[in-house]
């Protein structure tokens, strides 16, 4: 599964209720869908899935605000991740 689909699937499963939808540019944290306190499981998921370690200074809520930004963040630490 492509990274985009995988991340969207994780977010839907982890944070959303059944009928909620999320796209590439849906605001997640600034819209209140994901609160910054709960964001840690997303960070752990990305780290385990893509073999990266995201330092705290890079793990600001803004960096996780959309699926597009999350993909950019993963690529910053693993340019080959797909």
């Amino acid at each position, binding site marked *: 599964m492509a990274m985009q689909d995988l991340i969207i699937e994780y977010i839907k499963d982890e*944070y959303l209720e059944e009928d909620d939808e999320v796209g590439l540019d849906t605001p997640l944290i600034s819209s*209140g869908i994901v*609160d910054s*306190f709960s964001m*840690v*499981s997303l960070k752990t998921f990305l780290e385990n899935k893509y073999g990266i370690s995201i330092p705290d200074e890079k793990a600001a809520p803004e960096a996780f605000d959309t699926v597009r930004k999350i993909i950019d963040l993963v690529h910053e630490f693993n340019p080959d991740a797909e």
Partner: protein
Amino acid sequence: MAYSEKVRSTYKELIDGIRNDGLFKEERYIHSEQGVEIKVEFPAGSKPRDVLNFCANNYLGLSSHPEVIKAAHEGLDMRGYGMSSVRFICGTQDIHRELEEKLTAFLETEDTVLFASCMDANAGMFEAILTAEDVMIADRLVHASVVDGMRLCPAKHDTFKHSNMEHLEKKLQEHQDARYRMIITDGVFSMDGDMAKLDVICDLADKYDAMVMVDDSHATGFIGKQGKGTHEHCGVLGRIDAITTTLGKALGGASGGCVSGRAELVEMCRQRARPYLFSNTVAPVVVAAANKVMDIITATTERRDKLEESTKYWRAGLESAGFDLKESQTPIVPIMLYNAKLAQDMARDLFDEGVYVIGFFFPVVAKGQARIRTQISAAHEKEHLDKALEAFTKIGAKYDILGKSKDDIVAKYGL
């Protein structure tokens, strides 16, 4: 560095931003003791007016109870005003230990330690008992003080969807490699008034070898047939490893909180919890009054029984008027309005009608979940409830939301 004009303007801009975002909190000056009938100056500078209070955590109506006030006077006379010390130097009186023992007996735990507030109890407890080898798994709607306490603790943290037991179970399975697991939840959630499924949580804790921690601040004194709290209501007395709760709500409403639970966990809080070690003891006057509160609620369930009846009456009245209510079995009764401005406008109009309530909206509650939260007290008499129902009905009709579904209200006012 001097407090330069640049520094000043930085903070002025931040404050302006808070105001522009509609998040500026204003205090309302109360010119009377806490109770149902209060005198409120709002806006500041206006003549204080008589209103009915429906937004206090004064669940048992003990904040200004004559017996509690008398006990406070006696405590002041017998044990003085302040202790000028933390607990472990020279800040523990006989009445502090007496209160801890009464709380232990009431909550049916092994031991209790007092803190200056439940915020302090939550801020200090996790760090005192968990290490980086452990994991804390919290309901996503736990109180902010629990979140802060978890952030201060080196243990890993994770969260589960609000009251979603399948999700909790999945998280417990994921974290089986940690040394210890602790499930963390509020007993009653303050914004929705719903209760944690502590029976299921305790069963999952047994199955996956986890401890259970509950912040029962919105439950102690009145939830459960004897008012012991959510653990009594759910039939899990003796199965909760750590309960934090407050003296600042139903139990007299002054200040103070505690950790009550397994003897070793409580002892670790005495030895290691920084808010216990580095902040002043709870004042003797508060402790003396709280001891009386414990005597009152142990002797009779009259007040919590009345609260339960009044809550039913209040919910039934609002429902028959046509308001959209959150499901709850507690004295926290949220009236759903979904739109932030509507919640604020209605709260303002209700104040003009002599009913003091507050509108809550994002970020205090999720976006599109704005509401007016009403809270019932054992001090509310039927005539108070009837007068408030009349005011609510009048204002509900003004905004044309009576009998309307969520979709209707959202269509009319937006999210």
